[in-house]
């Protein structure tokens, strides 16, 4: 590897100030630090040794935690295709994987290319290093869109998310909203027909079997309760059984269907200390509490749905583990994290059950609480200041 290192060092002057490609300095820097961890040493005064962690490694840990969801999603896209078109119905088959990969990988690629391009352009214009944060965003976006989404929409949404969600605020670390959720919200409001209705199964021109509706658990629950007859649980039937929804053998966004895989990701995040367990636990807790409150009210079928069903339906688990825990847009104080997560969970179920327009609540709940996170922190910090002041007068 010394050869590669020497080669890079030889090219370096061209990218320094005054060099031929001065403008591309940060692009070069990004590649250089990607290949070789920098040789920089600590300053003369202050800490002389530094912790082994850096932002790249932290972000990569999140990407690694998403891999179970991605792989499961790839299988599931193939599996759902086969179910809808009357093909073989074993989950773990090469056939499923190849079919899924054929549709999922282009989406991943589209997201990374489009977002990466924006990152590089902004880094060059704004003269700052290229942000590692995009490693995570680029993987999150493909996992929260339906497998049938047109690639240009993925690219456009990513561009919107990165630019409006992050770069105009000053880049990674400065954004108010979760970037991936911003991209998802953009799709939802700009191209509603491609992200709602019967889009959750990639049929790929095959004819669906009789009785295929393309419905999701949430839309069934909603329809049942507006129709006003029968329990939601029985309407969900065997296909949307608690077990199937927990495992994720249901149609939905590519990476969101499996609660189990999201929990596996949560395990990685919590064990490595990268994601806040307080947020994850409190989102689930909040959703359960709200579900239980609705059970007590019990005005319609959806309200009567047992509270624990909410935990495995829709994107709640994925959102709790990967979206709510985004350290930049979440509450930053430890007390604040409890409140923040709890409210995300409660709002998610509230939107699901009460709001007629949006079948899924986690997206709006996370974005909503992103906006409120600074306010929560403000009061937590204010309490600290008050303790200090109270002490002074004694």
């Amino acid at each position, binding site marked *: 590897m010394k050869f590669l290192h020497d080669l890079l060092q030889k090219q370096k002057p061209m990218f320094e100030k005054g060099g031929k490609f001065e403008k591309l300095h940060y692009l070069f820097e990004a590649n250089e*630090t*990607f290949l070789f961890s920098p040789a920089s040493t*600590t300053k003369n*005064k202050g800490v002389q040794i530094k912790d082994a962690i850096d932002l790249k490694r932290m972000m990569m840990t999140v990407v690694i935690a998403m891999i179970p969801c991605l792989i499961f999603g790839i299988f599931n896209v193939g599996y759902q295709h086969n179910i809808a078109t009357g093909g073989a119905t074993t989950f773990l088959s090469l056939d499923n994987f190849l079919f899924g990969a054929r549709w999922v990988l282009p989406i991943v690629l589209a997201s990374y290319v489009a977002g990466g391009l924006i990152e590089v352009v902004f880094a060059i214009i704004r003269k700052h290093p290229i942000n590692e944060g995009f490693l995570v965003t680029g993987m999150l976006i493909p996992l929260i869109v339906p497998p049938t989404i047109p690639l240009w929409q993925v690219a456009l949404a990513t561009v919107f998310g990165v630019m409006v969600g992050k770069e105009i605020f000053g880049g*990674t670390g400065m954004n108010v909203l979760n970037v991936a959720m911003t991209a998802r919200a953009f799709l939802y409001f700009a191209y509603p027909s491609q992200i709602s209705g019967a889009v959750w199964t990639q049929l790929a021109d095959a004819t669906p079997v009789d009785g295929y509706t393309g419905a999701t658990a949430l839309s069934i629950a909603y329809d049942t309760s507006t129709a006003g007859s029968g329990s939601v649980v029985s309407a969900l039937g065997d296909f949307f059984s608690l077990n199937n929804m927990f495992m994720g053998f249901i149609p939905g966004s590519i990476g969101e269907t499996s609660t189990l895989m999201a929990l596996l990701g949560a395990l990685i995040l919590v064990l490595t200390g990268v994601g*806040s367990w307080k947020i994850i636990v409190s989102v689930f807790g909040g959703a359960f509490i709200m579900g239980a409150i609705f059970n007590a009210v019990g005005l319609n079928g959806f309200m009567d749905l047992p509270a624990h069903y909410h935990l495995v339906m829709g994107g709640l688990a994925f959102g709790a583990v990967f979206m709510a825990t985004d350290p930049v847009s979440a509450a*930053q104080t430890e007390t604040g994290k409890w409140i923040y997560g709890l409210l995300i969970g409660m709002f998610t179920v509230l939107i699901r059950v009460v709001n007629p327009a949006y079948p899924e609540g986690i997206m709006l709940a996370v974005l909503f609480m992103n906006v409120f996170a600074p306010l929560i922190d403000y009061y937590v910090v204010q309490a600290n200041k008050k303790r200090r002041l109270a*002490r002074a007068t004694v």
Partner: protein
Amino acid sequence: MSKIIKLKKGFDINLAGKAEKKISSSAHPDTFAIKPSDFIGMKRPKLLVNEGDNVKAGTPILTDKMQENVMYCSPVSGEIVEVKRGAKRKLLEIKILADKTIEFESFKTYSLSDINGLSRADAQAQMLKGGVWPNIIQRPYGIVANESDTPKAIHISTFDTHPLAANLAFTLQGAEEAFKSGISILKKFTDGKIHLNHDLNAEVASVFSNIDGVEHNKFSGPHPAGNVGVQIHHLDPINKGDIVWTLTPYAVAQIGKLFLQGKYDASRIIAVAGSEVKAPQYYKTYVGSAINKFVENNLNSDHVRFISGNVLTGERIEKDGYLGFYSNMLTVIPEGDHADFLGWIMPKKNVLSYHRAWGLFSFLNGKNKEYVLDTNTNGEDRAFVQTGVFEKVVPMDIYPTYLVKAIMSEDFDNMEALGIYEIIEEDLALCEFVDVSKHDIQHMVREGIELMQNG
């Protein structure tokens, strides 16, 4: 009431190369230096000697025009061989070539019982003149104490939890009486209490335990439990308008000697430690000693960094450099200017991280594993992203992230409200170590303190 306080937050950095508890007499440095930059808050240093002058131990060399009664004295007797200046004639170093046997300026001596009857004014006059005053540090701000202040309390931490830190009781051997009389002197300066803060998990050395009329508090927990700032926060926190003084045990003993023996005794036992030192141990020398004699033929490798002080709060010095005025240790660790292929993702052995994202399997190393860390930054400067980590390494009711952000935006009200009076650099040093985004937290803290000082 003496208190026992158990702290949980913090992080112990267990480095290789701890100093063995023996004092070598093999190395005799011949030059010593006073560096005005060691005295934080010194605005306009004024030189009192010229090159070629002969001085005794205790002869004033330097003073601050803002506080002209405080004398900064020569630690040894000998000749001023060089006055080193930098850009704009900034005073950098005053070097003294030491005599073979040290001669002392003589000050008035007192017996133990005389000391009790001494007035504050008389004691203060001798301390200002006798070179021991700069060891009294005032909080807030962490600067040399103002002689006209009466502090609400005086705090002395008797143990140091920094990585590889010298054992303070060990470096004070034979100074029992001096320490005792130092405390008696200090009692004249405050109407409040004197706190001696001990390590709960170790036997308190007799030099500290035999002191009456003070509070004996005990602290346990990982670093920074030994930081006096953390201790003050839990015993008697500093509020707006409060003045508190802090001293090291060494400084207390030095004050004692000034009155008992009538001399400015700058002799000091220092630790020479770190993974690159062949024989890490203690040496007897004087304040501001040249380090070349300690490292000659005593290094494991050539490409090293010499640090005056410890690895968290110290300052890099050259091989022909000098220890700082307040440093009781020299640390030598490997220089880390190496580039690693895909170093940010490759699994590595023997790395130390507070974050489990690196150290997930570090429990396999066991608690007593000693690490060899170099000076590599392990990453570049980034915006704040990770949250909640600073709070876990600062055992105080303070939000370091918010405080640092208040400093960055020069928000005076918030700096004050968030507790800037309670901290100095060393209290947030661990934040700088664990920071994923690699900010210079300690530098920022000092900038914030200077803003508060100068309004």
